[in-house]
């Protein structure tokens, strides 16, 4: 059964140095509040898994929380580069980052294999791509029935999965909807699962085929309204595109990035305070 607890407690209990962790959410429902809490608790040597690293991993990688990254598209959507990720790969700052790079199809399949308890995933893919030459975890097998050559990649196996969802009930059953990405697969591929939610309600009022994670596969549920800002929560708030644009300037420079994280994450107690400080600094910046 899921414990309903604070995000600080959940991260303290359920994420450890050296763990393999995925904070998932495909553009939608990205668990930024949980990412910040990992930075606040100064976790180290994490192997991070995520299809689209997005700003959340730019922050974690830039603060040196990770030594490994498994991913399939590492950009700032609609804007350009993830400068902290690039700095880690191109120049080893703040320290070298070992990358395992896939295509979306392969990584999505690898999550399914992890959720299914299988050792690897099989797909029709990667033919002719140079990714095969640089990632020893992309291999090829022959179909035992037809002989067709197919790609194989190892299953994603996580110590902890972290996702954000719209709602949970008081027993810890979780409901999410909209663009679902690989959140369900990530949760089921993990030994421990943290879910932050917009609200905790008496009754989820869900339709029979709704995407539900039953309480008994979830370790902790934390109520963090707005917890996927600056991404969005369908039915609650829109994506904050200006923040994604502003991030480009913040992350471009090492000192400016460090100062931003210090002021907005390390010096704040939680996500609520982060939002308050961000509103203040943004207003001050607008006033010039």
């Amino acid at each position, binding site marked *: 059964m899921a414990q309903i607890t604070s995000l600080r407690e959940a991260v303290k209990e359920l994420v450890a140095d050296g763990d393999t962790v995925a904070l998932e959410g495909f553009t939608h429902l990205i668990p930024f509040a949980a990412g910040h809490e990992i930075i606040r608790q100064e976790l180290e040597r994490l192997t991070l898994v995520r299809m689209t690293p997005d700003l959340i991993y730019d922050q974690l990688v830039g603060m040196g929380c990770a030594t490994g990254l498994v991913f399939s598209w590492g950009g700032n959507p609609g804007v350009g580069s993830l400068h902290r990720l690039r700095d880690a790969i191109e120049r080893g700052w703040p320290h070298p980052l070992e990358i395992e790079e896939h295509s*979306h199809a392969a990584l999505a399949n690898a999550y399914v294999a992890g959720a299914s308890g299988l050792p690897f995933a099989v797909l029709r893919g990667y033919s002719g791509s140079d990714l095969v030459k640089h990632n020893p975890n992309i291999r090829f097998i022959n179909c035992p029935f037809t002989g067709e050559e197919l790609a194989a990649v190892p299953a994603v196996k996580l110590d902890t999965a972290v996702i954000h969802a719209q709602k949970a009930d008081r027993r810890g059953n979780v409901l999410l909807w909209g663009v679902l990405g690989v959140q369900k697969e990530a949760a089921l591929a993990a030994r421990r699962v943290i879910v932050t939610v917009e609200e905790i309600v008496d009754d989820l009022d869900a339709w029979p085929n709704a995407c539900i994670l039953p309480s008994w596969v979830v370790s902790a549920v934390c109520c963090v309204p707005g917890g996927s800002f600056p991404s969005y929560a369908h039915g609650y708030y829109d994506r904050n595109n200006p923040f994604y644009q502003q991030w480009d300037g913040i992350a471009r420079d090492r000192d400016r990035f460090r100062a931003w994280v210090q002021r907005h994450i390390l010096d704040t107690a939680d996500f609520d305070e982060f939002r308050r400080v961000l509103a203040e600094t943004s207003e001050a910046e607008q006033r010039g």
Partner: protein
Amino acid sequence: MTGADYDTNEIMTVTASRRLRDGAVCFVGIGLPSTAANLARLTHAPDLVLIYESGPIGAKPHVLPLSIGDGELAETADTVVSTPEIFRYWLQSGRIDVGFLGAAQIDRYANINTTVIGDYEHPKVRLPGAGGAPEIAGSAHEVLIMLRQSGRSFVDTVDFITSVGHLDGGNARERLGLPGKGPVGVVTDLCVMTPDPETRELTVTEIHPGVTREQIREATGWPVRFAERVTDTPEPSRHELEVLRDLKRRTDEAHRSDAVGR
């Protein structure tokens, strides 16, 4: 330019949109392809089915998405499925007619690089990476590519093949056992290139109004060949330009959201 009242991005977008037939099922990349695909849907191809890798099937966005998973796509779609399902049931199974891709770098055989400039282990510039493109390039029945043309983006050999085009030409795709036909056209701001039927080398088949052969040669990193019969790209119609500009105006208005901290 000829002094016509449209810019190079507009003729590129209109020309690409015309290549999408009504009723086709199109797997759409973000950016230029998404703009052209939605223009097609709003003009000559109302039943064009747009599929985005984040899960929306049959998306009919009123404004263009900035990211591949915008809520607008989910809200206007016939259905939204998980990302594994998109790649397994819909792409891999052969249900996509046209894969519509952008690129950072493309070579004479329409191989696409979105991974690195320079060496993979010690990259000069690290690009975002593959995303959905390698399997779209492999499994879609055919692939349409759209990007602005320059000596930097059109190179003899890409530094890294992220998504396979026609590899080293000829029947390379068949030898690899790839299910789809691969790139059938590359639309740029200067011209349209099509793979030669034998060698599969990209060859200029259409030139946009006012563009010279010399301009195209200068913006191509290999000695580019022109097909025996090169046609002039038809100008965008008034209707196409109006719909495209409306779409962009709506998009700009919608994305001008409130302050960063809110």
